[in-house]
């Protein structure tokens, strides 16, 4: 290394260091340093070693934060490559990196494209010169191909500057990838062209490059016809195309044609001055082309175009090459100077044949495409030529005049600005050249619209070619895909032909006539955007609908192709994801119909639909348009209900799908629930609905209470099947711990309904079986409310408490119904139920009767348990309940208690009907402890006698109670009665009714006569006459027992005897005479035993002896009378009081069901035991 080199190296190093060091300085300073370093590296180092040494340091600036520095680095890469092309291997990727600049800086991107533009020809040139390229070179080439692709993408960039640079890049690529010809001009001698690429290069394909170039040109040409191109881009493209035309004259014709089209179809977006600029640009470029030697075949076209663009004759003439030069050119082989349409027409078959050859020679697909595209352009051209010629023949003076007249009506009211700015007076109107030009312009428009003989011919040819291809395909030849343009043109032909363009008056520039038609009139290459027009909304929605129908109808194919799921998803999403509107709803209708058409096999689709809407509602999937949560929910609900309702209406609620939807839907809306309810109400298939409902209750914890309500609601329906099903299901669910509370709550609420003054409206309705709303409770409605509760009672005894509470508050009607329906559940509970006992312990106030009723029901057939007895006793004692409540547990009471209660039964008017039952229990029941009847028959009778009635009524009741006993001749045999009488005799004082009983016994059992005589004897001993009632009975008894009683009478004291005579005499019976007879008939010794005083009494007439006796008797009788009077007064008082109480009791009784029952029943108490006063349920 020489010293000079070393010092340069030092300089570079120091410059770079400074550039790195300046952190806070302006970037211009740093740029200066870098520029100096670059200068030194590139230009002051012949050896090139510095470049190697400092390359990495320089490239480090590539990630500098300043865009200018980065731009500089890009520039440096270019310079470095220019100096040493090998480096592209290293730096190609750097360029790629910079293109996708991290900060998206436009200037850097532009710089990279710019550098690529310059670098590409150099690179291609260098590559093609490599004799034995190594792997790295090939890699570099591939790298650059990637870069190229990326750059070409930028043609779609948003940024105008980037697009502009991209166009330049295209130009550079085209120039480098097309062969130079002898007529090429304007470029440096050493500039790159395709002919420098060797055909046998290892990795660069000549053909591929050639094809690429053709595509690039097409894409540039396409830019000219893009309606939205900006003026800046348009200018750039024009300049690029001119450059290409000048340097590659083979494209001259294409370019000129494009300019021609552009001239009459300037983009509508351009402003007035922009139009002017573009026209100026076109003019200048055309003038330059005019000078080009290869342009001579096109001079007529160019000059007419120039005239239209406003160029003066002089300008044109100045640009035209001199005659001598022209002549020189004409001598050249190839095309003649005045080559017009006919020549080009002739050229066409040649072209076709060459492209044919190409196809045969090379089966490369792109090649075929490109040649097809090429011939496409040719065809358009020739079509214009043919039509032009056709029109030229037609443009006679008469026709033209007609055309002008016709088109006058179409003239716009105001002159369009485009026309105003571009109109130039026609210099040579009516001349041959002008007519030709006009016909050509018109032909251009015709062709663009696809009419005219030229187009017809083109189409014919295209069709032939297409058919040829098809037949080749049929024969099995592997063909590249049909190029788009063919199908497009055939597609066009199948459409209705657009209306012919309005004819133009001669000389009038075509594009200025009608602004609105301008876009469609432009001659363009095929592009979907150009041949389509916006559809009418109705048409559009119709098409969309058709498309949707088509999708739907392709189910079979989707199935065959294994895309069933995708197909379903597609349908569902199309139907759901767009905002609701007429279109969407028609989609939904279609989808629904589709599902219903074969709901068995499309159930998945239905479920998918439901899920999709639900996912939208939850926000799991995005809608095309945002919607409120409520809307989304409504949509979900609608989808669900429509499916269900439609199924229901079709009578398919018995099908699986109906239930599947309900079971699988993520959420059941109230409306859906209604559907289910309706399904449950179905007379035939309701059970299916019930089963589903039950499943849902089990599997949907979140909606359990709603669902339960539906189920349990059925329990108060009139229809028995519904009721039963509801009940059965409820019972089943009630067994489950996690559902029970809900059920309990529901039945509780239902039960509480009966406390309302009126039945709630829910009970009424067609469905419920009670179509008319009633304003008062009746048995049916009450029963409806109680039904479920009572049926659940055996399952959960604790419910009884609630029932009791409600009962306590309820009115009589309800109470009555409860009484009636209570039997079955209570019996099912049994008397050992804890809850029952608890109820007796804590009986709510007012529910005592219920408690009593329950106990009664329980003890009807079974002896009460001790616990029951105790509790009921307590209840009775603490609340003072009706004594009747004790009847069931009489067998559980001890004797004292029974005796205490007994008078209450026997003496009360209200109890008379219970008396028989009480006696039955006492006599036949078994004491729960001893197992013996609580009382023996004798005991009972005796106890009855012990009762002391205070009033006549009570006496009456007591007598009738005894009568009940007497009537039971099985129980009360003569022995029993004798026992009773015996016992009674021992009592002191003797019961009032004793004599009555004796008389009764005598009547029932006459055999007891002897026994009774003894009794009478004993009575005399007990001075029976001291008790008037008994004495009365005694007298009666004696009367009855004549003559047996004579023996007894003889033992009476004379006073009493006389009184007896009198008393019997008063009753119309004379005992004395038979007695006299009896005494006289007595044997003598017996007569002797008769005391004389008695005899005397017998013998004397009692009426005569009366005075004496009466005085005695009267005295006592008076006293007694007075006494009795007093007692009676008291009794009356007592009676009145009792009467009052009874009335109260009666009132109470009226409210108690039992009383009511009794009223209702009105049947005689039978002697049969065990008959309850309350009707069985």
């Amino acid at each position, binding site marked *: 290394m020489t010293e000079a080199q070393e010092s340069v190296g030092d300089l570079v190093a120091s410059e770079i260091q400074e550039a790195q060091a300046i952190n806070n300085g302006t970037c211009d300073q740093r740029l200066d340093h870098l520029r100096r370093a670059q200068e030194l590296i590139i230009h002051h180092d012949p050896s090139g070693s510095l470049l190697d040494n400092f390359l990495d340091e320089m490239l480090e600036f590539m990630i500098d934060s300043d865009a200018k520095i980065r731009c500089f680095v890009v520039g440096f890469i270019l310079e470095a490559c220019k100096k040493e092309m090998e480096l592209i291997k290293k730096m190609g990727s750097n360029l790629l990196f910079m293109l996708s600049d991290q900060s998206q800086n436009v200037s850097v991107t532009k710089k990279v494209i710019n550098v690529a533009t310059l670098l590409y020809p150099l690179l291609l040139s260098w590559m093609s010169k490599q004799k034995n390229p190594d792997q790295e070179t090939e890699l570099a080439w591939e790298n650059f191909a990637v870069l190229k692709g990326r750059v070409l993408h930028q043609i779609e960039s948003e*940024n105008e500057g*980037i697009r*502009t640079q991209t166009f*330049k890049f295209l130009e550079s690529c085209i120039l480098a990838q097309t062969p130079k010809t002898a007529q090429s001009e304007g470029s440096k001698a050493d500039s790159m062209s395709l002919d420098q690429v060797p055909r046998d290069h290892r990795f660069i394909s000549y053909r591929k490059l050639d094809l690429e170039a053709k595509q690039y040109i097409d894409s540039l040409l396409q830019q000219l016809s893009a309606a939205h191109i900006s003026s800046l881009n348009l200018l750039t493209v024009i*300049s690029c195309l001119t450059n290409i035309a000048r340097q590659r004259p083979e494209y001259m014709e294409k370019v000129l044609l494009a300019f021609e089209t552009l001239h009459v179809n300037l983009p509508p977006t351009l402003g007035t001055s922009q139009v002017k*600029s573009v026209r100026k*640009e076109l003019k*200048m470029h055309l003038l330059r082309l005019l000078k080009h030697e290869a342009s001579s075949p096109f001079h007529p076209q160019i000059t007419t175009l120039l005239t239209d663009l406003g160029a003066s004759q002089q300008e044109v003439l100045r640009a035209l090459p001199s005659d001598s030069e022209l002549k020189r050119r004409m001598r050249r082989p190839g095309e003649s100077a005045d080559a017009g349409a006919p020549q080009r027409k002739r050229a066409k078959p040649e072209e076709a044949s060459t492209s044919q050859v190409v196809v045969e020679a090379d089966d490369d697909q792109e090649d075929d495409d490109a040649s097809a595209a090429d011939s496409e352009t040719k065809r358009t051209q020739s079509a214009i030529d043919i039509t032009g010629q056709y029109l030229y023949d037609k443009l006679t003076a008469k026709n033209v005049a007609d055309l002008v007249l016709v088109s006058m009506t179409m003239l716009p009211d105001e002159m369009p600005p485009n026309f105003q700015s571009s109109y130039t007076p026609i210099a040579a109107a009516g001349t041959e050249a002008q007519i030709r030009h006009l016909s050509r312009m018109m032909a251009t428009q015709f062709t663009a619209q696809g009419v005219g003989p030229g187009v017809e011919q083109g189409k014919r040819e295209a069709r032939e070619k297409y058919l040829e291809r098809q037949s080749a395909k049929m024969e099995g030849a592997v063909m590249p895909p049909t190029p788009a343009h063919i199908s497009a043109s055939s597609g066009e032909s199948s459409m209705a032909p657009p209306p012919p363009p309005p004819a133009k008056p001669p000389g009038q520039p075509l594009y200025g006539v009608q602004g609105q038609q301008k876009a469609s009139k432009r001659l363009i290459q095929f592009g979907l955007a150009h041949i389509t027009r916006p559809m009418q909304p109705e048409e559009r929605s119709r098409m969309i609908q058709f498309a949707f129908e088509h999708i739907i109808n392709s189910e079979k194919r989707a199935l065959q192709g294994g895309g069933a799921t995708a197909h379903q998803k597609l349908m569902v999403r199309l139907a759901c994801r767009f905002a609701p509107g007429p279109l969407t709803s028609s989609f939904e209708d279609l989808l629904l119909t589709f599902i219903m058409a074969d709901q068995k096999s499309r159930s998945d689709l239905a479920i998918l639909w439901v899920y999709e809407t639900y996912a939208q509602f939850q926000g799991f999937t995005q809608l095309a348009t945002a919607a409120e949560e409520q809307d989304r929910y409504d949509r979900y609900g609608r989808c669900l209900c429509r499916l269900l309702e439609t199924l229901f209406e079709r009578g398919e609620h018995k099908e699986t799908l109906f239930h599947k939807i309900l079971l699988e839907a993520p959420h059941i809306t109230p409306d859906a629930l209604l559907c289910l309810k309706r399904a449950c109400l179905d007379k035939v298939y309701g059970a299916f609905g019930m089963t589903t409902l039950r499943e849902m209750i089990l599997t949907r914890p979140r909606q359990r209470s709603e669902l339960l309500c539906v189920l349990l609601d059925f329990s108060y329906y009139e229809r028995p099947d519904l009721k039963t099903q509801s009940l059965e299901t409820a019972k089943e669910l009630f067994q489950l711990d996690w559902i029970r509370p809900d059920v309990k709550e529901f039945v509780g609420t239902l039960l509480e309904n009966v406390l309302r003054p009126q039945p709630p409206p829910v009970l009424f309705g067609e469905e419920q079986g009670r179509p008319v709303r009633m304003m008062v409770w009746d048995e049916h409605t009450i029963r409806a409310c109680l039904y479920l509760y009572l049926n659940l009672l055996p399952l959960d005894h604790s419910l009884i408490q609630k029932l009791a509470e409600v009962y306590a508050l309820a009115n009589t009607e309800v109470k009555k119904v409860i009484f009636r329906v209570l039997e079955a559940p209570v019996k099912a509970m049994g008397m050992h139920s804890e809850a029952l006992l608890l109820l007796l312990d804590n009986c709510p106030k007012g529910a005592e009767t219920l408690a009593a009723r329950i106990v009664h029901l329980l003890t009807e057939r079974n002896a009460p348990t001790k616990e029951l007895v105790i509790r009921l006793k307590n209840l009775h004692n603490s609340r003072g309940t009706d004594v009747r409540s004790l009847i069931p547990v009489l067998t559980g009471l001890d004797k004292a208690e029974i005796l205490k209660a007994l008078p209450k039964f026997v003496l009360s008017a209200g109890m008379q009907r219970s008396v028989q039952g009480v006696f039955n229990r006492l006599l036949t029941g078994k004491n729960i402890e001893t197992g013996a009847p609580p009382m023996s028959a004798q005991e009972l009778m005796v106890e009855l006698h012990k009762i002391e009635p205070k009033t006549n009524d009570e006496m009456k009741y007591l007598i009738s109670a005894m009568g009940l006993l007497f009537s039971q001749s099985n129980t009360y045999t003569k022995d029993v009665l004798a026992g009773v009488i015996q016992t009674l005799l021992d009592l002191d004082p003797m019961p009032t009714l004793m004599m009555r009983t004796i008389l009764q016994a005598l009547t029932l059992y006459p055999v007891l006569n002897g026994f009774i005589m003894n009794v009478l004897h004993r009575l005399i001993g007990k001075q029976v006459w001291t008790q008037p009632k008994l004495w009365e009975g005694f007298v009666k008894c004696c009367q009855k027992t004549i003559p047996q009683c004579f023996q007894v009478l003889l033992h009476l004291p004379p006073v009493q005897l006389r009184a007896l005579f009198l008393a019997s005499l008063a009753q119309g019976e004379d005992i004395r005479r038979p007695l006299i007879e009896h005494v006289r008939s007595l044997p003598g010794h017996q007569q002797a035993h008769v005391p004389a005083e008695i005899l005397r009494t017998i013998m004397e007439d009692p009426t005569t002896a009366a005075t004496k006796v009466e005085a005695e008797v009267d005295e006592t009788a008076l006293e007694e009378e007075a006494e009795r009077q007093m007692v009676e007064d008291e009794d009356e008082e007592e009676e009145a009081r009792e009467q009052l109480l009874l009335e109260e009791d009666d009132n109470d009784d009226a409210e108690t069901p039992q009383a009511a029952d009794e009223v209702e029943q009105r049947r005689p108490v039978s002697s049969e035991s065990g008959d309850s006063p309350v009707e069985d349920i």
Partner: protein
Amino acid sequence: MGRLKLAVSCSSNMNRSMEAHSFLAKKGFNVQSFGSGNQVKLPGPSPDRPNVYEFNSATYNDIYNDLVMKDKTLYTQNGLLHMLDRNRRIKESPQKFQTCEDRFDVIICLEERVYDQILEDLQTRESVDGQSVHVINMDIQDNHEEATIGALFVCDLCTRLEACEDLDNEIDEVLTDFESKCNRNILHTICFY
């Protein structure tokens, strides 16, 4: 976007372009001025006898002296001397655009003929590196008053252009705006070095 490199050009680089040059330079723009004609032409004693000088060779000072020598009163009266005096304080001599090697971002022409000439020149130059340049035309009549007004417009335009974030992308819009504001016909194209 940094400062733009501007060029203003009229036919002779005397009146309109120099007025704009002087105005823009005072405002701190990076500006150069040019003529695009073949020669520098100044009004003479009669329309058919103009004073003609060669570009680049004749300095403003030379021309000034020449005119003083020829007819000081006339040229003082019609303001030529005053103009030349101003010009010689701005730069040495009239420059012809076609001979200038410098690169610009924007070239502003002040007459359509000048625009044509400059385009002709730019488009026929040998292409070097593809750097783009915007060429804009704004018609200004060749007299003192119009030149002064024109300079104001040019300055306004340049201010707008420099305010652009991305000139290539926004120039169409800026020009459309400007055109409607100044009510003058604007031509615009892009060329590549």
